[in-house]
């Protein structure tokens, strides 16, 4: 388990090889997943400017290595819980791009039938158990899913993603203590991108590492990982998942990263100190991972083949979503209850 990993490494570490503990297949998967997230989010961004998407959305451009690394380490029947910044975590579980783009466009083909929007992406069939838009709530909910796995001895784990700002709300504390006391197979992942909405996390947090420095309060080891390096993330994820599946209980992991765009589409991010974004752009996970694959001897056409395939998939999904009609008005009266309806009286 990476403990307080030092400065970021641009090159893979010396002993790393294409077919080391991670292996080529996983690496190509992570390459694809990172691209899917990046491409879909850039497309969403464009669609906003074409006014085809309303409401809000929160991009994770710059943070893709985290979702890709964890996603690649998960079993298909594992559970993901994430936030309004959840396109990434939902996509890496295999959710439909059309369903996602369509949802943001408010179309009938949307994965939530137009009822949830960007902040509530969910694909239960693929283990994406929901995106939660009230800070902190999904941490105890993820613990509950892990409780089911423990109770039924299924070997599943629940992975729960949230931001640095989330570590200051009460539900964080309750969930962590609860999960440890019940020894639940849940892995809490704090994506520390340095900011809550517009306020630097350092201005509102009593400790330097908002998650890792709190692990002590639950008897957990302090774990920090380079969140821009998918391989490092994959390793830390695998270790935590193995521990959880083996009955070793929860983990709390802090992944250091940065979001390139503002908090949400309304935010031009003028609060950032000059040069900060540029520094982080140098550590962009995607060119870095591309270079690593080439350094490992993966052929350029394999690498770019995946790029092209992803772009094509995103294009197709976009067209499909555009072609989909808006949801029928009657659908607003569906699915409040298990019987499919919305009636509160007879």
């Amino acid at each position, binding site marked *: 388990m990476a403990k307080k990993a030092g400065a970021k490494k641009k090159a893979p570490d010396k002993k790393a090889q294409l077919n080391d503990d991670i292996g080529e297949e996983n690496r190509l998967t992570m390459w694809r997943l990172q691209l899917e997230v990046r491409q879909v989010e850039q497309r969403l961004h464009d669609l906003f400017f074409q006014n085809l998407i309303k409401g809000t959305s929160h991009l994770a451009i710059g943070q893709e290595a985290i979702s890709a690394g964890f996603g690649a380490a998960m079993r298909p029947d594992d*559970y993901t*819980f994430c936030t309004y910044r959840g396109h990434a975590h939902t996509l890496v579980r295999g959710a439909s791009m059309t369903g996602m783009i369509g949802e943001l466009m408010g179309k009938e083909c*949307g*994965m*939530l*039938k*137009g*009822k*949830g929007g960007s902040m*509530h992406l*969910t*694909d*239960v069939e693929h283990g994406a*158990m*929901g995106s*939660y838009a*009230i800070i*902190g*709530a*999904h*941490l*105890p*909910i*993820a*613990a*509950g*899913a*892990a*409780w*089911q*796995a423990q*109770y*039924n001895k299924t070997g599943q784990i*629940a992975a729960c993603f949230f931001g640095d700002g989330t570590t200051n709300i*009460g*539900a964080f504390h*309750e*969930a962590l*203590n*609860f999960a440890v*006391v*019940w020894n639940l197979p849940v892995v809490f992942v704090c994506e520390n991108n340095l900011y809550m909405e517009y306020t630097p996390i350092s201005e509102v947090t009593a400790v330097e590492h908002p998650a890792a420095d709190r692990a002590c309060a639950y008897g957990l080891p302090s774990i920090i990982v380079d969140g821009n390096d998918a391989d490092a993330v994959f390793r830390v994820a695998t270790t935590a998942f193995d521990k959880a599946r083996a009955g070793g209980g929860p983990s709390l992991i802090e992944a250091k990263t940065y979001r390139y765009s503002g908090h949400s589409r309304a935010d031009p991010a003028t609060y950032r100190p000059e040069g900060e974004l540029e520094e982080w752009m140098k550590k962009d996970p995607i060119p870095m991972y591309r270079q690593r694959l080439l350094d490992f001897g993966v052929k350029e056409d394999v690498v770019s083949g995946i790029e092209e395939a992803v772009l094509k998939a995103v294009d197709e999904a976009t067209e499909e979503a555009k072609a989909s009609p808006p949801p029928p008005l009657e659908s607003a009266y*569906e*699915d*409040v*209850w*298990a*019987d*499919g309806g*919305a*009636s*509160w*009286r*007879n």
Partner: protein
Amino acid sequence: MAELTYREAVIEGIAQEMRRDEKVVFLGEDIGKAGGVFKATVGLWDEFGDLRVRDTPISEQAILGAAMGAAMTGLRPIAEIMFSDFLAVCWDIVTNQIAKSRYMTGGQVDLPLVIRTANGGGARFGAQHSQSVENWAMMIPGIKVVAPSTPADVKGLLAAAIRDPDPVIFFEQKSLYATKGEVPDGEHVDEIGKAKVVREGDDVTILALALMVPRALEAAERLQAEAGISASVVDIRSLVPLDTQTILSQVKKTARVVTVEENPRLCGWGAEIASIIAEECFYDLDMPIVRITTPHIPLSSADELEDAMIPSADRIFETVRQEVD
């Protein structure tokens, strides 16, 4: 038929369902080894053990969050929130998460869970441990709301709530825990969403819930005996779904209606029902719709003050007699 207390009926309702279905699990503070602060869960830990009856830390958000996560993934949890006032510390999980998740996901998630909680006044516990908050729950789209008045209904409706595929908040009135009543032997499962006409009358309909039902019945007996007024009493039993058919048919029959609610006045369930009647039965009414409520004031702890606030049989009697005249 066995005579049980209201609290024993809680235990029986839970035990019946836990025996039937391994997926039913139960969590809350001090519910296990200690049998609950109201002794309404005594024996469950002994019978079902540590894995199905789980004591928790004082972490209401974790309790309901865990219940929700477990329900979404296949269990059927029962979560206890010790006093209904404490719903306020986990209100986000109730209203923003549990109530909305099925809808927001386009119907992808099932949330078969029950939140049991001790509601209401009469125990001189003061304003933070005595509230009737059934209107808080009624006001949130996406949760069912049940509040029984008798041991038989406790058992039958609790069993129904546990089997229900939707989230249910089950309000137990703490002043009723020691009351007794006949409960059917063997498996007993009632239906959520049906009011019960517990007294037939011709002159006026009294709509009541939970602790207000025995008080309304007592008032009705006195109205008959002392004023010759024949009152129907309807035990609403479930606020969501609301059995408007039964309610409106009684109102039409008697042309006069009084609601009796323990929650404080503003935006209480009585207001909702009054507004339904005022819209749908307006031309059937012979008299203004009268609401008897706890005034819009926090509850005091001193006996005299608390008793003066919560609607009593006397107040119901006096109000109805005066209005029906």
